[in-house]
């Protein structure tokens, strides 16, 4: 009767909670997510998408979005914040081809030589292993090739503008710094960065080395976690529906029966377990 009750409850529960349903998609299968990062120092701008003013007086260091856009190609022009239309862009117009089910960050930034430009990055939303997070580093600064140090040791080497590097690592805090390639003297940081489980933490090195405006911008995109592959929460068969039936199935919790129960299980398993373990079980209860 007990078993039947549980089975009935389980069926209702599974339906109610969707315990055996498929997980939902992060992004619609027909649209793309677009973020826009302003990483040109000291210059507020306007951003036009397909000729329409979309971001007004957009400030350096700010991140806009996500915009949920149907897959397709979009023309983006970036103008001075004082402009009244997109006819005289300072960057672009550039065409951004956005694929469905994909996350992007378009970055307005300086080239390695210091000229305003824009780069479209694809954000890696592949799911992370349980207990892990993702660290992405993007070089969008007017600066030469860099290494990224974690805890003083290089984990990413020879990263150049406008490129990225990424790695998955155990969730936790990373002391991150940026140094010229081949050196370990930081030009940025070190700073503590939280690598959260199931989150893509994207670090942007932006600004200008010559102008002493180098800075780090952080974008995070979560929801990439995966659950453990299982919850193995038993090993002895003491609570099993198919446990040996000899008179103790209804008397769980009685201390006097513990030794006998465990001994019988041990016999079933071949008797290879030391009896000392059974004694500790008795102490516990």
């Amino acid at each position, binding site marked *: 009767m007990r078993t039947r009750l549980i089975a009935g409850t389980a069926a209702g529960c599974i339906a109610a909670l969707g315990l055996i349903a498929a997980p939902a998609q992060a992004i619609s299968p027909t649209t793309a997510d677009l973020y826009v990062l302003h990483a040109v120092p000291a210059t507020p701008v306007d951003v036009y998408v397909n000729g329409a003013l979309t971001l007004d007086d957009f400030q350096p260091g700010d991140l806009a979005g*996500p915009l949920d856009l149907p897959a397709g190609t979009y023309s983006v022009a970036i103008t001075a914040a004082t402009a009244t239309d997109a006819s005289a862009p300072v960057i672009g117009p550039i065409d951004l081809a956005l694929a469905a089910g994909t996350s992007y960050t378009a970055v307005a930034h300086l080239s390695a030589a210091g000229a305003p430009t824009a780069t479209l990055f694809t954000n890696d939303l592949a799911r992370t292993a349980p207990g892990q997070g993702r660290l992405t580093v993007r070089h969008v600064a007017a600066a030469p090739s860099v290494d990224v140090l974690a805890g003083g040791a290089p984990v990413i080497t020879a990263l150049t503008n406008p490129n990225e590097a990424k790695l998955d690592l155990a969730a936790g805090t990373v002391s991150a710094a940026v140094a010229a390639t081949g050196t370990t003297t930081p030009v940025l940081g070190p700073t503590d960065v939280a690598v959260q489980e199931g989150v893509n933490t994207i670090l942007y090195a932006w600004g200008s080395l010559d102008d002493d405006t180098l800075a780090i911008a*952080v974008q995070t995109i979560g929801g990439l976690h995966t659950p453990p592959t299982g919850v193995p929460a038993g090993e002895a068969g003491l*609570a099993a529906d*198919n446990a040996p039936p000899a008179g103790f199935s209804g008397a769980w919790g009685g201390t006097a029966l513990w030794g006998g129960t465990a001994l019988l299980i041990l016999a079933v398993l071949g008797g290879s377990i030391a009896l000392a373990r059974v004694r*500790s079980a*008795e102490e516990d209860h």
Partner: protein
Amino acid sequence: MPRPRVLAGVALALLLTGCSLNPASERPVPSASAPAETTAPTATKPPVPDVPIQGTENVPARLAVPPVRVSVPDAGIDVGIEPVGVLENGEMELPADTSIAGWYEYGPDPSSETGATILAAHVDSLVYGLGPFSRLRDLAAGAPVRVTSADGAVHDYAIQSIARVAKEEIVLDTVFDRTGPAHIVLMTCGGQFNYETGHYLDNILAIAVPAP
């Protein structure tokens, strides 16, 4: 602008709805069909869609508030809790002692606004014997559950349902929920036992929601 006016209008309307999957939102769409960009420029700017803007400062992550004790009087459960992660093989780590529950430290905790706080304990052990979580399956709906957190906060729940789900079928993605309404899941093993592999075939789940 070389692009067809219709496309611009559609894009603008979508931008204006701010990521909605349903463009026919109730939000007013000011003159989306009258693209201002192709008419003669005026001294004032056209309306701008409501796009979320955030800073990019390096802010510390939210610190979890670990649960430290769970009691379910109707099941005779009153056990301490340790934070646990995953084993090398990707399975959830669990305290060896059947009288200690493991809290999945990568997921929500009782102070989280959303998702499932997962508390799991071995149903039995060759060392520690049958554990208190073996009695989860006997609980009735409405049974009270109390979780105490490291900061001293007390969180009260009521059992909503008990489920026994085959491990081969269970979707742990859904059980280890992070975005739904806040709740807790007490987990252990049950059902048939495979004496050759030493594993149970089912997981037992006691789902509890915040007490009214």
